[in-house]
């Protein structure tokens, strides 16, 4: 059994801090929004620091699981034996990268939520609970806690959208919650089936991974259960055709929730497919991956094509997210090290890029109160910084070299070509369509003569600029020098069962 590592307490801190912040906010009076904002900004900054630490301290080429910590909880009760349920934390290369993503996006999200006036304290309480759930999911090496934190991350969304949202918020919030909870039911069934079938009396993930790898879970069982995990987590990852909560959910969600939601939460789904699907059920994964490849490719093309004629900024980003998460699924489905690494890179890349896009949409919508592309024109004259930031995000979306999108997509394309050349070609085609919908939006909104109605628009505020710079810097680092990312991923990806060189 892995001992507790001193660095494991870093993970514990990162997990506990948002919960403590939520508790502290709960104890604060509700009529002092500034105090809530300050507390949240400090929490976000510390979490960003911890996340950067986790990512940098993760040693490339060392053990796959690092920074472990184990606190036994329930043992020798009922069918539970030794190590029944324990708070076991640790990170591998993929979750270290996603931890970094969470730190970046959560901090940017807190900064953006600064201007929120309505019940700011309550907003931040839910926000931090959600973030704690995200960290918990990435850190958990125990199936019970994995699911617990997964749900903890999803449930606050309903309130965050329902209370602070806009356009058709009740509908968007309800649909999103029902679809995600529906997916969770599948995961829950799968979890019980796996724990029962393995018969180890434990929820310990590494033990279950070993069971899947060694054949303690029979191939037929794996093939039968894999869809529960793939579809259950796939809902959150925007798996086609279960993606429709995404465009509507984004349209309704407030800015910082959209950022965290598209930026981080959708990654929980893809991460779940790796943690539960590929790692516990390698045989099942190998069997079902071609189907996931097809769905991912459909999603990539379908999202891009649908985005071509959307008129609402958020719908464009919603569909573009479907398209980009399709790439993640394609990368995972290749089951080779380049493709799976590309999928992990794409999770990060899409996370920071989408967070930036939603930040910018929010900055415009707060002033203009419309998101219809055709209402705009020539905005570059009044909001030059906003336009520059949007162009950078859009070009990352299109896969322009030098920005993170290219790094990720390039690995996915190469990985896909290695196994399925035709799908590789289709994936690249989707990237060309991305250029079309992005440039169409640039041309309509940013350039051309200025619509006099918008002469009064203000450019980004200093706080928004700070958040945007953080996100753009992340995109540039991954786009220009990606060895620190791939080095940390390589070992982990190769350790995944069924992943070939």
């Amino acid at each position, binding site marked *: 059994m892995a001992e507790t590592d001193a660095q494991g307490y870093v993970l514990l801190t990162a997990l506990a801090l948002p919960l403590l912040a939520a508790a502290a906010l709960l104890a604060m009076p509700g009529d002092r929004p500034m105090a809530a904002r300050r507390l949240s900004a400090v929490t976000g900054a510390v979490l960003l620091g911890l996340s950067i630490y986790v990512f940098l301290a993760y040693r490339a080429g060392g053990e796959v699981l690092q920074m472990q910590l184990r606190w036994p909880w329930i043992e020798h009760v009922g069918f539970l034996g030794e190590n029944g349920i324990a708070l076991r934390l640790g990170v591998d290369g993929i979750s270290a990268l996603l931890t970094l993503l969470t730190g970046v996006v959560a901090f940017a999200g807190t900064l953006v939520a600064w201007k929120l006036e309505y019940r700011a304290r309550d907003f931040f309480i839910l926000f931090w609970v959600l973030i704690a759930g995200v960290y918990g999911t990435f850190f958990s090496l125990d199936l019970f806690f994995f699911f617990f934190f997964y749900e903890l991350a999803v449930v606050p969304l309903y309130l965050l959208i329902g209370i602070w949202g806009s356009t058709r918020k009740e509908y968007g919030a309800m649909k999103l919650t029902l679809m995600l909870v529906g997916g969770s039911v599948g995961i829950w069934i799968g979890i019980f089936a796996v724990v029962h079938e393995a018969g180890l009396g434990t929820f310990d993930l590494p033990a279950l991974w070993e069971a899947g790898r060694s054949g303690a879970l029979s191939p037929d069982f794996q093939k039968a259960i894999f869809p529960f995990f793939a579809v259950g987590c796939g809902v959150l990852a925007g798996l086609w055709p279960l993606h429709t909560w995404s465009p509507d959910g984004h349209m309704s969600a407030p800015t910082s929730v959209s950022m965290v939601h598209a930026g981080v939460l959708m990654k929980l789904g893809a991460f779940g497919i790796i943690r539960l699907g590929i790692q516990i059920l390698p045989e099942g994964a190998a069997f079902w991956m071609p189907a996931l490849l097809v769905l991912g490719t459909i999603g990539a093309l379908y999202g891009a094509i*649908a985005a071509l*004629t959307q008129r609402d900024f958020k719908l464009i980003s919603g569909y573009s997210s479907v398209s980009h998460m399709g790439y993640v699924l394609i990368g995972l489905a290749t089951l080779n090290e380049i493709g799976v690494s590309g999928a992990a890179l794409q999770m990060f890349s899409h996370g920071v890029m989408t967070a930036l896009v939603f930040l910018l949409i929010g900055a415009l919508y707060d002033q203009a109160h419309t998101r219809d592309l055709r209402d705009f024109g020539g905005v570059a004259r009044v909001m030059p910084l906003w336009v520059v930031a949007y162009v950078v995000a859009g070009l990352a979306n299109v896969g322009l*070299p*030098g920005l993170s999108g*290219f790094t990720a997509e390039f690995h996915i394309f190469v990985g896909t*070509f290695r196994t399925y050349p035709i799908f590789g070609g289709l994936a690249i085609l989707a990237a*060309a369509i991305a250029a079309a919908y992005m440039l*169409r939006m640039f041309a309509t909104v940013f350039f051309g003569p200025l619509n006099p109605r918008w002469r009064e628009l203000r450019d980004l505020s200093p706080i928004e600029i700070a958040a945007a710079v953080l996100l753009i810097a992340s995109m540039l680092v991954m786009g220009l020098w990606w060895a620190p990312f791939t080095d940390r991923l390589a070992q982990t990806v190769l350790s995944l069962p069924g992943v070939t060189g």
Partner: protein
Amino acid sequence: MAEHAWILAAVPAIAFLALAALGRRLPRQGDFLAVLAAASGFGLFFAVLASFLGRGEGAWPVLNAIEWTAIGDFRLNMGIAVDQITIVMLAVVTTVAFMVNVFSVGYMKGEPRYWWYFAVLQLFVASMLLLVLADNLLLLYVAWELVGLSSFLLIGHYWERRSAVEAAKKAFITTRVGDVGLLIGIILLWKATGTFNILDIIHAVEAGEVGGTGLFVSVMFIFLGAMGKSAQLPFHVWLPDAMEGPTPVSALIHAATMVVAGVYLVARLLPVFEAAGDALLVVTAVGLITALFSGVVAFAQTDIKKVLAYSTVSQLGFMFVALGAGVVSAGMFHLFTHAFFKALLFLGAGSVILGAHHRQEVGQLGGLWRRMPVTAAAFLVGSLALAGLFPLAGFWSKDEILHAVEGHRGALVFALISLASIMTAFYTTRLFILTFLGKPRDAEAGHARETGASMTGPLVFLAVLSVFAGFVVYGGVGEALGFPGGFGEFVYLHHPETFHIDWGLAGVSTALFVIGVFGAGWLYRGGRLDRAAALTAWQPKLYEMTRRKFYFDDLYQFLIDRVVLGFSYVVSWFDRFAVNDTGVDGSATLTGYAGFLLKHLQTGRVPNYALAIAAGVAALILVALAAGG
């Protein structure tokens, strides 16, 4: 120095960062920084050249290769390489970039976002130099996309103008379609050879490790990228529209450097193309069709820049024809000479536009010879070089192309490329006559004034190059300059070729020049339009078709509006109504309705419940009996 040639790209890159960050606050908005960077690039090129020539007969030096990333056996090494083809490209890029930067100081004076213009210009130069220095296809692709981005930004420089925005968008998306092919081709070649390194790929192909249909398919995908960037049919539509950008940009990017990236790519990979079945035949065919097509379309264009744009498309076709004949020196030589005289013509056009107060329709110009003598003289030199007058630069390179085609592609191709040569001479003469001879057809053109020294200086410099650059074809000239011999002995694929003038071919070439020039001279004698008008009236439909560029743009617009966007509307509709409203909301409604039906069971009356319990018990007993019996 050659091993540190990356400095050439680093200088403009730093200038870009400096200008983008500080340009607006610097005195003169930092234009001196841009000129300084371009001048040092031009100077550093000679250092690289001297060091390269000092090595003697050397293989392709692989330099500064650093491991970029490695996942298992998937390794990426980034590095630069300098060989003869690179040297030619470096000469073209640094020279034209220097001239264009100087010219822009005068041309762009007082224009909006002056500093940003210079910043992006440096970004372009840096990316273009990176493109020609890259030793592997991945880095080449990175630079390939970055030049596309700079081109997009510069075409759309006047973004308040709708047409400029549309043109920028069109250029980016059209070339992007070709780039899909390029990326697929690069990855397919990687799959076959296991490397992105250009030299390793060539070695693998020459050793026969890859070949057959697979290689042909990969090469065709790569060629798609080359066609997009070099505006070959059917991707040519973006280049004429790109003339919306500031004119110096047209000279640098859309005449001399970026658009020849496709030619460069094919020249670079020519051994691979050679080994790939009929790939070179496709290259010739595409080049030939493009050369003829755009030669015809150039007749009927009335915007001075659009005539030059179609001329560029046509000349790029010539280069592909030469490469398709397998003669790398002929293609690269035409690229080299064309860069100078076409940049000259574009800068000359810029000078005309500025001098004639933003008139650029030939119908509004005329008679500028007297008012703008330096520009007119320089433009005349450029025109004659383009038309192929002995012994200007264009004559020699066209002669090499004719020679290559005659030797490798047979009589039909020779006849057709000769026809395209006549067209070149024809539209060039027409353009010159309409712009500079006769009487001004517009009051503004009548008040035209010669432009300042920062503009005429580069014109004169490029005019000198347009006269003399062709002589490097001779071994003696090359040796005097320190090269191992003439152009064909410096840039070659298998064996160096010493140039000997073929008087018969030179005679044919001169005859083509004479036919074209005198044809146009007769039609537009003294700048009069009556004969041309009569010709138009004689065949109005044909004229209309040519003027409308054979409806390519209309066809594409139709396809985009009706097919691509139509498909998108269908998908969006399907997503809304089938997936969401029926699938998702439908199942929600169904659940709700089921709840509505079931709620009637919840009556609240005890007798009803008691009855249900009794029925349940009875049913269980029956089941138990049935199972037990």
